[in-house]
């Protein structure tokens, strides 16, 4: 709880501490990552369906918002909400097709989703502007750029809080437990009465809606859309990297991951910016996480702390005799107790006799 308050305070104080608009805009980018990877972890974290295609949902949110503003003339934030709803609606058929398959096939489908949307948005130039891109009008045309960043920083922070809240609510709920059961063994979950498909679809739609909100808000902030960058596998993969790095099973995992990766990407770029080595560094980071912290940073820290405590016993610490006693006691009959030692001692003798014969 204290952590939550501290975190919130830190996030909210950041804009006043940021020394210049650039840092502030970097903060916006990181928050956007945090929103997206948290949204991703609704699906990836709870159900274990790894989607590399969430970049596409964000892109749809962005384009949806932009088109509603430019073509339908809706006010920016109305357009954002409508776009998120539309994407959520669109997520129903997408989820319907994609969630029929599991595991690696789902990964492939999600990749295919990005690629096909890229092709469509590139080719359908009359609507989307194609490779010329699409310009999103500013929601607050009068704001100076630094102010613009500040406003959007808070908007993103709000959206993040909303996503985290939703995540937390699901995590502790029976719905969440059902989703986790799906992650562990889908058929078994179904056999226990969980409507697995409906669960998956619902959480996919929720995830899509949040992702679209993130993407749409980004579009409003950023102003220029280009299919190549909106529908990129790389974006989707960064989201996975962040969530994974932080720990998909933790509320703040994706947020922590976004902080680390966001700052890391920036750092690599500054360090190795004029060569492709920044890609190498990103690849190494991802590989290290997968190999050594497959559950993420937060759980890794947790287990490091846990290792300092004495090891937990996995073996049952009750003998059959004790179990029998419990059973008898439970049945209400007087426990026909016989000293266990007696058995043990006879056992010892017999064991010896076996060894002699051997």
């Amino acid at each position: 709880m204290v952590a939550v308050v501290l975190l919130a305070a830190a996030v909210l104080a950041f804009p006043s501490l940021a020394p210049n608009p650039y840092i502030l805009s970097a903060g916006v980018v990181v928050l956007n990552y945090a929103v997206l990877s948290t949204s991703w972890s609704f699906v990836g974290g709870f159900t274990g369906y790894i989607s590399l295609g969430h970049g596409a949902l964000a892109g749809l949110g962005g384009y949806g918002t932009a088109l509603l503003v430019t073509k339908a003339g809706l006010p920016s934030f109305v357009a954002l909400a409508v776009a998120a709803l539309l994407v959520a609606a669109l997520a129903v058929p997408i989820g319907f097709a994609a969630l029929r398959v599991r595991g690696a096939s789902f990964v492939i489908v999600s990749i295919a989703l990005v690629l096909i949307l890229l092709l469509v948005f590139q080719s359908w130039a009359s609507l989307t502007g194609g490779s010329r891109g699409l310009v999103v009008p500013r929601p607050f045309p009068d704001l100076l750029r630094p102010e613009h960043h500040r406003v959007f920083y808070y908007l993103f922070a709000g959206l993040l809080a909303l996503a985290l809240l939703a995540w937390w609510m699901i995590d502790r709920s029976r719905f969440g437990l059902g989703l986790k059961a799906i992650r562990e063994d889908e058929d078994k979950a179904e056999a226990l009465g969980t409507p697995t498909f409906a669960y998956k679809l619902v959480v996919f739609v929720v995830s899509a809606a949040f992702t679209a909100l993130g993407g749409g808000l980004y579009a409003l902030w950023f102003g220029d859309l280009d299919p190549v960058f909106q529908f990129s596998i790389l974006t989707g993969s960064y989201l996975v990297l962040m969530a994974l790095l932080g720990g998909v099973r933790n509320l703040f995992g994706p947020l922590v991951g976004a902080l680390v990766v966001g700052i890391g990407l920036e750092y690599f770029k500054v360090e190795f910016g004029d060569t492709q080595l920044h890609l190498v560094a990103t690849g190494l980071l991802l590989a290290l996480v997968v190999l050594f912290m497959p559950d993420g940073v937060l759980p890794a820290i947790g287990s490091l702390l846990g290792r300092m405590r004495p090891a937990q016993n996995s073996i049952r610490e009750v003998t059959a005799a004790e179990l029998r006693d419990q059973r008898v006691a439970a049945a209400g009959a007087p426990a026909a107790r016989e000293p266990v030692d007696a058995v043990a001692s006879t056992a010892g003798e017999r064991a010896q006799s076996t060894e002699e014969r051997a």
Partner: protein
Amino acid sequence: GGDDGGSAGADDPIVVGVSLPLTGDFSEPGKGVQRGYEAWAKITNDKGGLLGRKVELKILDDQSNADRVVADYEQLIGKDNVDLVVGPFSTRLVVPAARVAEEYGMLFVEPAGAAKEVFEQGFKNLFYAAPAVANDHYNHLAEYVLALPSDQRPKTAAYAAMDDPFAQGTAYGLKEKLEAGGVRTVVDEVYPPNTTDFGSIAAKIAASKADMVVGGSQYQDGVNLIVALQQLKYQPKLAAFSTAPTNPEFAAAIGNKTEGILSPTGYTQDAKYPSNTEFVEKYAAQFGSPPEEDEANAYTTGQVVAAAVTAVGCAEQGECQKKLVEWVRTNTVETVVGPLSWDETGKPKGAHMIQQWVGGKIQIVLPAAAKETDLVYPKPAW
């Protein structure tokens, strides 16, 4: 704002910020642009700098990514507090970058945003430092074709353009004019930038038996398309490709079967403008080979900015930028690509020359005033 970036101060260098695609899809032309800027800074400094201050470049890599390019200019202007900014490479990156500059009120002269969309965004601070926008590159060729006697004039044309505002713009500029002049379009193909297999496109063009083929291409796709056409033994009467044929490696790449291939260019090392002679000479000394178009465009950008700074007498963020913008808008600048002036959208008011491979060498054939040799038509077999 804080003066830690070093505006004012007579001895402080003038810091010019730029973000370039040094890695990623546009890295090759990006590097060319970088060399052009570096040559400009060096040549300028060797002559004593601007306003008596040294020029210092601050170059960031945007990885050919629009998100990054914005972050970069954000950093340059907001954090590094540079005195001036100049533009990146590629239309896709110019627009978002220009918006940042615009919103911070900076003058934004750029070497690469040639597509007409750039000038439809309502930017007030943007100027394209080259003779013509993409759609006008082929203007001289269009005139030439349409002026041919009707029995010789090509009847049909095939167009293949990369899905990129610049490349497509060049081909479509020509297409529009030829169609208006009665040359029928028989193939109109657009391919994504990452296309590597041109077999099918070439097959379509070959099957159409078009009299002329026009490629709205960048370097490598142009080469691939030509090779694929050659594999199919297609022999048009006229073949024009943007960008690719002017590349020094072009002839080797297509097995020296270059004869008669046409290409528009905004720059030639042999141009007689005074600053150009100096540029070619010093550039060659600095980098060991003569400059290409990308380098020249970057250099031109520098020249435009330098002219404005010298004329206005200041170089820092704030009020000064307004004056710089005002000056560029109302003046003509002598550059390595000739005198440049702009309309109110920042679009230059010139045209490109047309070059052709003749006798194993690429030479200027149009306009008549600048030609080094006569245009060969119909084109010999390749």
